Structure formats: C-alpha cells, structure tokens
C-alpha cells in the first residue's frame, strides 16, 4: 500500500519575495512602515535636502589659501564660481589660527604650551587606562608623534623640537616598560605645567612642590597617632607655613645659587584654547576632590559641617556662573587684604573650581544616596573607620554610579570656560573671535570662526562623553 498523497522528498526552501529581503525590506520597515512614518521620512529628507542645498555650494566654493582679507576671498569665489556664488573663507583660519590656539603667547615660545599639552595626555594616560598597559604606551607614542608634527608645523625644526621629542620618547619608553612610573608624571604635571606655561625660575614650582612633601611627611607622622583628619589638617597647616613663610626665601636662595629659568610669560598673553584648557583642566582636577569632600560633608552626622556644606552648595548652585566671575574680577579685591593683587586667571580658576565643585558635590551625593545601607553597615561590621570605609567600600561604588554625572559636569565646565571673556580674558569664542571680526580685513565674517571654534569644542566635549561611556562599560560589574 502506498500513500501517494504524502510527499516523499522535501522541497527546497524558496527565496523570500523581493519585498521581504535586503534593502527594500529594510527601507520599508525602517522608513515607510506607516503613513505617519512616511510623512516623517519625507520631512526628514526634505530638511536634509534644504540644509545641503543651502550649505553645500558655500562649503564647496570655500577658499583655503591665496586670500588675506574678506575682499580677496570674495574675489576668489567670484572668479571660481561666478559673481553670485557664496563661499566659505577658511583662509581666515589659516591666517589667524595661532590666535585661536595660543592667544597672544609669544610665537617663539609656542613649543612650551605644545609640550605641556602633550604632557597632559601622558599624565592622563595612566589614569584613563588604569588597567590597559598597552593603551598607555600607545597613547604616549601617538601623542609624541603628533606633538613633533605640531612643533614642526608651528615653530619649524629647532632645538626645542628635539628636546620635546626626546622628553616624549623617554616617557613613551617608560610607559612601555614600567607604566606605573607614569603616575609620578601625573603627580608632577601641575608643577611642570605651571613652570612651562608661565615660565620664570624653576625653583618656584619645585619649592611649592616641597610644601606638598612637607604635608605628606607630617601626615605620615601624625596620622597613625591622631587619625587621618587631624593628620591632614596638621600637615596642611605645616605646608601653609612653608608656603607663606619659607617659600619665597628658599626659592630665591636656590635661584641665586643655581639660576635656571624660562622666559616669563604674563597672564594677559594667554588666550584662545590655551586659556580654555588651562582653566578647564585646572578646575576639573581640583573640583572633583573638593566636590567629594562637600558631598561627604553634606551627608555628615555633624550638624555644623552639614549646615555649612548645604549652605555652600545651595548658594553656589543658586547663582549664575557669570556673577561668580564678576565676583572674581570686581569683588575679590574687597575681600582680600589691601594691596593684594593676584593673577586674574588664578582668580577665575578658583571661582570656576568652586562653582563646579558644588555641582560635583550634588552628583556624588546622588551616587552616595544610591548605595544601599547594607554597604555602610557592612563596612562598620568589618571594623573599618570612617575614612577607611569611604576609601575602600563607599567611594569606589558611589563614584562608579556617578560617572555620567561627573563627566557631564566636566563637559559643562569646559563649555563654561567661554564665559571668562566677560571679565576681560581672551577666550577663543568671544574674545578672539571679536578681535578677528573687528579687524577691517575680516569684517563681515561670521560663520567660519564660529564653526571652527564650535568644532573644536565639539571634538573635546564629544570625546569626553564617549570616554565616560567607555568607562561605564568597563566598570560595569552587574550581569547582562
């Protein structure tokens, strides 16, 4: 008996219909899945078309060289693309890039900020990639090569280039063999940067550094007996004594003994992205520890410390940064002893630091609040004291939770460095651009400088936010 209606051999699967595969299906599902979606897609395409139609001729007719003024640019565009065509005048950036980057820093000394900028990455590398030794060395190498290219581009090939290249090569070698040693570079970086950027005798920063060593030594003696808080305070007092009483004598004595100095550069020569980075990096690096302390203060059991922290944080968060900056430029002269007059950049850095410390404090407080009580109780049960518990158990978790918030505070701070133009510093956005636009040769230029400055800000801020996502992923310990 045979069952003829049963098929014996399987049919080969047929290819899906053309509308269900490949690009057509993707377009149908993602762009035209319904009337509403179709309208949206058409609107988006129309917007894109308008944007491109408006900006493409302008970009394509852009003039990169052979022009030293707006009139030259217009002439070149008219010659190339006809009398009515519009064209970007990037030649302005070719002529003025150094003001956007360095402000009025003397051209023969440009190697110093460039080297400092490269060292910044060397100092950051061991912090950014704490568990990836290869990445540290790679980063140092790449930064070194880029730095040499920048130096040759900015300065020509000179002894400074060789010196800077040698420094970077040595640091890269260290990074490749003993990456942990680079942490010393990280600790020394503030002093090196201070000296390289402002110049002057080398002994100033060195003796200031000794103040921190005094702090460390005193802390080492006192902390085991009286606890970390007393240790830190007594050490701080000792260091302050060193800075206030001995600093100038010791550094002058050494300068007389072994004179070694770089040409001094005044603060009013700083400008452009150099200024933005000086303020940004200094404030970012100081405001995080300060913010953590404020957050701890706000959660403290001690009523007085809590009240002071809350008052400070709420006051600073309640007023605009501009008023803080005006305080730095107008009011600080009232609050300090008569005849004290210190650097405007330093004043601005202090106020910006205070500002972003309050925001960081709130972010860190959010992280602390998100930790379950069990963590604190477990730390107590293990017999850890307050600072041990914070250092070993609470902070690593709380900071991990608050990474996105902290990084967005940093991004905000870096963007806010543009506001220093209102107290008379030459920031890249308003300070330098105003100078360029006020020049008779570049009268009437507006898109190009803003696109240039905005582009650099975008790269830096976008880079920071991408790094925070990488860090979040790296530190993620939960499942899934």
């Amino acid at each position: 008996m045979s069952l003829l209606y049963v098929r014996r051999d399987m049919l080969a699967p047929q290819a899906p219909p053309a509308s269900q595969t490949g690009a057509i299906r993707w377009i149908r599902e993602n762009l035209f899945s319904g009337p509403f979606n179709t309208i949206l897609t058409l609107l988006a395409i129309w917007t894109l078309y308008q944007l491109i139609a408006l900006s493409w001729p302008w970009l394509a007719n852009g003039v990169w060289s052979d022009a030293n003024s707006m009139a030259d640019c217009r002439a070149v565009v008219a010659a190339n693309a006809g009398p009515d065509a519009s064209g970007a005048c990037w030649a302005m950036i070719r002529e003025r890039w150094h003001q956007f980057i360095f402000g009025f820093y003397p051209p023969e000394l440009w190697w110093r900020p460039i080297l400092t900028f490269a060292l910044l990455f060397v100092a950051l590398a061991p912090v950014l990639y704490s568990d990836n030794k290869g990445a540290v060395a790679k980063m140092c190498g790449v930064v070194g090569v880029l730095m040499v290219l920048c130096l040759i581009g900015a300065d020509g090939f000179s002894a400074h280039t060789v010196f800077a290249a040698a420094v970077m090569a040595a640091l890269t070698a260290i990074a490749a063999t003993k990456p942990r040693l680079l942490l010393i570079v990280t600790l020394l970086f503030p002093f090196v940067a201070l000296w390289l950027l402002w110049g002057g005798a080398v002994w100033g920063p060195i003796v200031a550094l000794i103040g921190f060593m005094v702090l460390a030594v005193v802390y080492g003696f006192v902390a085991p007996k009286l606890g970390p808080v007393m240790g830190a305070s007594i050490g701080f007092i000792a260091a302050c004594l060193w800075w206030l009483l001995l600093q100038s004598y010791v550094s002058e004595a050494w300068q007389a003994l072994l004179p070694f100095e770089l040409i001094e550069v005044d603060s009013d020569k700083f400008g452009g992205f150099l200024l933005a980075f000086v303020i940004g990096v200094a404030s970012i690096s100081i405001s995080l520890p300060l913010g953590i302390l404020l957050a701890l203060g706000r959660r403290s059991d001690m009523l007085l410390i809590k009240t002071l922290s809350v008052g400070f944080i709420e006051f600073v968060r309640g007023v605009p940064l501009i008023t803080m900056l005006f305080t730095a430029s107008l009011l600080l002269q009232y609050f300090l002893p008569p005849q004290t007059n210190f650097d405007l950049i330093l004043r601005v850095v202090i106020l910006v630091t205070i500002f972003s410390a309050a925001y960081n404090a709130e972010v860190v407080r959010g992280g602390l609040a998100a930790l379950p009580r069990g963590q604190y109780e477990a730390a107590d049960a293990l017999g850890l004291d307050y600072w041990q518990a914070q250092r070993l158990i609470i902070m690593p978790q709380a900071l991990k939770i608050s990474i996105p918030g902290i990084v967005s505070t940093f991004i905000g701070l870096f963007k806010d460095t543009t506001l220093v133009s209102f107290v008379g510093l030459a920031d890249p956005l308003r300070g330098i651009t105003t100078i360029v636009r006020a020049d008779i040769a570049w009268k009437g230029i507006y898109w190009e400088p803003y696109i240039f400055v905005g582009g650099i800000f975008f790269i830096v801020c976008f880079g920071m936010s991408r790094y925070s996502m990488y860090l979040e992923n790296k530190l993620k310990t939960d499942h899934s």
Partner: protein
Amino acid sequence: MTLVTEPPKANFRLGMLIYDTRYRSYTIQVIVLILFLMGVAWLANNTIENLAAKDKDINFGFLWNRAGYDIDQHLIPYTNDDTHFRALLVGLGNTLVVALVGCFFSTILGVIIGVLRLSKNWLVARLMTIYIEIFRNIPLLLWIILVYVVFSETRPAPRDFKIVEGQTSAAHMNFFDTIAVTNRGTNVPAPLLTNPLPTVHLGFLPISLSLIAVIVVIAASIYANILLRRRTKVVQEATGIRPTIWWKSLLILCVPVVALLFAMGLHWEYPVFKGFNFNGGINIAHSFTALTIALTLYYASVIAETVRAGIQAISRGQSEASAALGIRPGRIMSLVILPQALRVIIPPLISQYLSLTKDTSLGIAVSYLDLRGTLGGITLNQTGRELECMTLMMLIYLIISLIISAVMNAYNASVKLKER
C-alpha cells in the same frame, strides 16, 4: 542583672576629645566653627578696611536715585527718569520673560526631539541624535552669539523694505506682509483693543484689566474642560461607553475667549514702512530673539536627552503589555509610557529649568538688559557700588532659584509613586 550594659564610667580625660569617637565629633565641630568664624571675621575685616581705604560705605540708598539710562524692552512703564530700583525691576522682568519663554519652547521642542530620537524611523532617529550631540557639545554662548550675528548681519536694513512705484523692493516682509525682520529688530503686529477694560494703577504697577479678564476666562475654560473630562470618565466607568467629547472640549476652550476678544474689539496693528523705518506694531530687539532662540535650541537638546532617558527607564514590558491589550502605538506612548516616564523626567527637568533661568544672564553677550544688564551692568558702572549691586543681584538670582526648585519639588512630590 541589668539588661542594658552601662557605658564604662571612665573619668573624662582631655585626650578623649581626640581619641574617643563620642567626643571627637564635638572637637572637630568646635574647631571648624572657630575656623569658619575666623574666616568670616577676616573677610569682613578686609572688606571694611578696603572700603575705608577707598572712602566708600555700604549703602543701598543709591537705588532711589535717578537711573538715567534707557531700557528698550520694559514690561512695566519705565523712562530714564525713573529710579535704579525701577530699572532693577525692569531687568528682573526681562530675565523672567526670557526664562519663561525659553522653558516653554525648549520643553515642547525637547519632548518632540526626545521621543523622535527613539522612533523606529532610522533616518529621523539619526537626525535627532545628530541634533542633540551638536547642540549639547557646543557652548551655549556660541549659539547665542551666532544667532544674534546672523540676525543682525544677514538681514536687510529697514530702508531695503521701501517700496518705490514701479520697482520691487530689495527685501520683503514675511507671513503675508505682517512680519518684517530687519537688521535692527523684528517687527511684529501689535494686538489692539477698540473698547478695552480700564487699567488699574496699583502703586507703581499699572495692571490692564483686559489682560486679567483674558487670563481669567482661559483659566475658567480649562477648569471647565477638566470637569467635563472628569465627568466623561465617570460615565465611561459606569457604562463602559466613552461619550464623544472632543467637540465639546473644543467649544469650551475656544468660544469664551473668542467671544471676549470679539467683545473687546481685538484687531491687529501691522508694521508699515514709513519714511526711514517701520511704524506701528511691536519691535522685538534681536538681543531678545537671539537669546530666546539659542536657549530654546540648546536646552531642547538637553531636555531631549532627559526625556529619552526617562522613556528608556520604563521597562519594555510596559509597552509590550499595552500592545498586547491592543492599544495603538501613539496611545501607548501618551497613556502608558509618558505618565510613568514623567516621574523619572521631572527631577532632572527641574534642574534644567534652573540652569536655563541662570543662563539667561548670558544675555550680556548680546547686550540684553536683564537683571545682570541693569543692576549688575549699567547701574553698577554708573554708581560704582560693586559690593551692593553684586550682593543684591546674587541674592535675587538665589531667591529665583530657590522658588523654582521649591515649586518643582512640590510638583514632584505630588506625582511621586505613592508607596506604603
């Protein structure tokens, strides 16, 4: 046998102030208090010495002197003969107007962009991502200056609008000849009433009863609409059938206002080119326009991110469950996802409104005369009273911030999940 262990009654020794955790916190607080008071005293002393050296005193009397400068945009009547205090109020009003308008438009734009960023439409989602990243990562100041420069340098001068017989003018007005954007400002039609209600003078502040009447009528219509919706819900729960009410809502919301405006004789005064400039209508300065547009665009990107994070915080199960119940995608968003996401969105939204309000002080870049421009700008420079002006300005900003966060926290508490 006692159940409670008595603490050892050791004799108090001085060393316990440092070693004993029970007393140490007091020691630390006392030291901090002393340091704090010393710091305050030091600052106060310095201030007094510095003021004495400059032959100044702290005196807010200057607020009642004649200001002597003009403010183009003023919500309350103001001339340059008025006092500095009135200039302060005008500036405060300008700050609040920009903040309100900015918050309103950036919320609308931000919610739309945030929702569209999660859209399944690949192209739209990408475009929104690009928008958000570009605006978030570039300083707000750049947008303010750029918008201002574009308005004041690319727009034609008023004389280009001049119409000569037989020739076409160099520039045209927009929106059926009602709005003219020149390089000096934006001329928009002004609403006028033929038979308005009287204006009440309340000390220094004139209050237009017509405006109050419009506001009252709108509020009453909205309240009536809420009552209608509530009743509809009761009917639906009792019978299972939802009565159609959209036309009733529309009537309740629109008819009273339209009737009132018609009764008061609303008509528009259009800007017309006469002589050398535009006459009639309202001239909005580019500083206001630029500040508002830039704040809106920038904060829309920030709010969009907040909205996206809030929506993504709602688990997929919610939307899947609603889909299983047969709710349409648009209604899933409005009925299920958004109400829940709102709880996540509101706290960060509060702080964004706060920063927007504080960032209105960036109007300095385009010479917008807000609180900082009047009190902290011209008044400060004219009188030379930095200490008083700055203190007062910081105080006012602080109060605004505290009020916003108090109002928003109250709202937040009312929508919070009610748990046991």
